[in-house]
């Protein structure tokens, strides 16, 4: 289980991700210990560079990362990482994941 200190770090880092173009509502008290998952508004258009994987050389997978393709037609993908959920709308990425799973 992800630890709370990590969660605080993610809260801060989440602000930077949002600034990069993937809109995410970072959970705090109400969603951390209260009701429901983070309601992350879907970003319009394609995913940003980070989610497209162009900076993977600088990244490390310190926390599990799970993707949930919700809608192939819109490309809506929920990406779970640490204690965050980021939602991207990327039909091409969704299609690639779908084909990879076949």
């Amino acid at each position, binding site marked *: *289980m992800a*630890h*709370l200190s990590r969660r605080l770090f993610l809260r801060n880092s989440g602000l930077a991700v949002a600034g990069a173009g993937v809109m995410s509502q970072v959970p705090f008290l*109400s969603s951390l*210990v209260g*009701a429901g998952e983070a309601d992350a508004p879907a970003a319009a258009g394609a995913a940003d560079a980070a989610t497209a994987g162009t900076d993977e050389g600088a990244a490390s997978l310190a926390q*599990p990362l799970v993707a949930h393709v919700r809608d192939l037609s819109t490309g809506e993908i929920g990406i*779970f990482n640490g204690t965050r*959920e980021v939602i991207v709308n990327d039909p091409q990425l969704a299609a690639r994941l779908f084909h990879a799973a076949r």
Partner: protein
Amino acid sequence: MSSHREAPEISKDPVADSSDLYAFVSPDNPETLTIIANYIPLESPDGGPNFYEFGTDVLYAINIDNDGDGEADISYLFEFQSETTNLDTFLYNTGPISSLTDPNWNRRQTYTVTEIKQDGQMTVLGAGLPCPPCNIGPLSTPNYESALADPAIKTLSNGMTVFAGQRAEGFYVDLGSIFELGVLRPFAADHILSNLLPTMAGINATKALNVHSIAIQLPIDHITRHKRMPTNPARPESVVGIWTTASRQAATVLPSTPKANGSSVYAGPWVQVSRLGNPLINEVVIPLSQKDFWNHEAPQSDVQFAQYVSNPELARLLPVLYPGVFPKLAAYNAASTPSRADLTAILMTGIPSGVVPGFQNFTGTVQADMLRLNLAIPPATASSTLPSNLGLLGGDVAGFPNGRRVFDDVVTIEIQAIAGATLGLVDPSFTPDKAAGAVNQGLTSSGTDLTAIGTENYLPSFPYLGVPHSGYFTPAS
């Protein structure tokens, strides 16, 4: 277990299933507040070899609202870790567990406590705190309370005392009767199907069961709005609302090859799967279609469930199940769509001043299911009538629905209230049926009976719930 197995989804997830919540001014230390949140309902004491433990993938929380908006101003979060020290045995222990560090104990848990405030301040109050083992029997867990449970009571950096581990179930209820089409055994002769069931004393379904408790005791002036010990019961800031939650991360990926100490992957935000404030709300007030959703929601959104509280199904059923016993309640129900302001006050807003002389636990107009406690009301002083297991209905303002003590007969209190016993407080034109004040589940002999079957195990001090029943001496019923 006022909220055990109360919703379809959580009934399949016992380690995250909150079963009871207690909150009271500590009778032996009235400058402090005690809160007990119970999980893992219906533990059979002999449930080995993998005895019960908290979920290591569950985020447990005790939440406190001190300004009446239904949002947590302070939360205490509990995260558990498990360790298997001997991977080469099937046994929970390979000899007597004589202490919390005994190498004979193979499967142990520790936990972390974190305080989080609404302004974002987050403080780890304790880590690596030990849970005691389950009470297995005199060979495996000798001197259980003195050698294992008492040493697991810890005082943290903020002055808070904590305990997390197995306890004897303190809630008493005749489950087998109540869920048999609303039968109350002592009143079976009045039931519509009385020809099929005998009239008899109630049976405490939980008398030989255990539960896992997260108990805290903390200075009252630490959690009130103005950080002071309240002394005036009439002041709004004397009242706090309390609830417990359990959450799981949104995504779980099971390993293709399980490993000894677990290798599942958890990711994503915490999703609330269990919630408990007042007893029995989700269990008998919220309909099946809404139960799992209710568990997912926060108290501040509870106005969406207000209709189920103000017009409860059980109040409509009682005159049907017990023909002729509740004629005034039946007439009230038939006159118009019921709008039970008494139940709304008791469960959703607190009781305002002027309803019960000298008492209030009103938190404002926000309808939220929270266990409300007026911290300026001291524990009951023992007398011929106090404390009363009927709480406020028994003239004891220190009891439910002013918080909840371990011995409060919340089943009887809520049945009486729903039957109309409290309706006259807000609707002077309504005279309750005589039966409304007499109906009970038949597990105590009187309002001051705190020693009925299943209630004799309480402790006079923290953590108040009794020594867990041992597996050896308490075979499964």
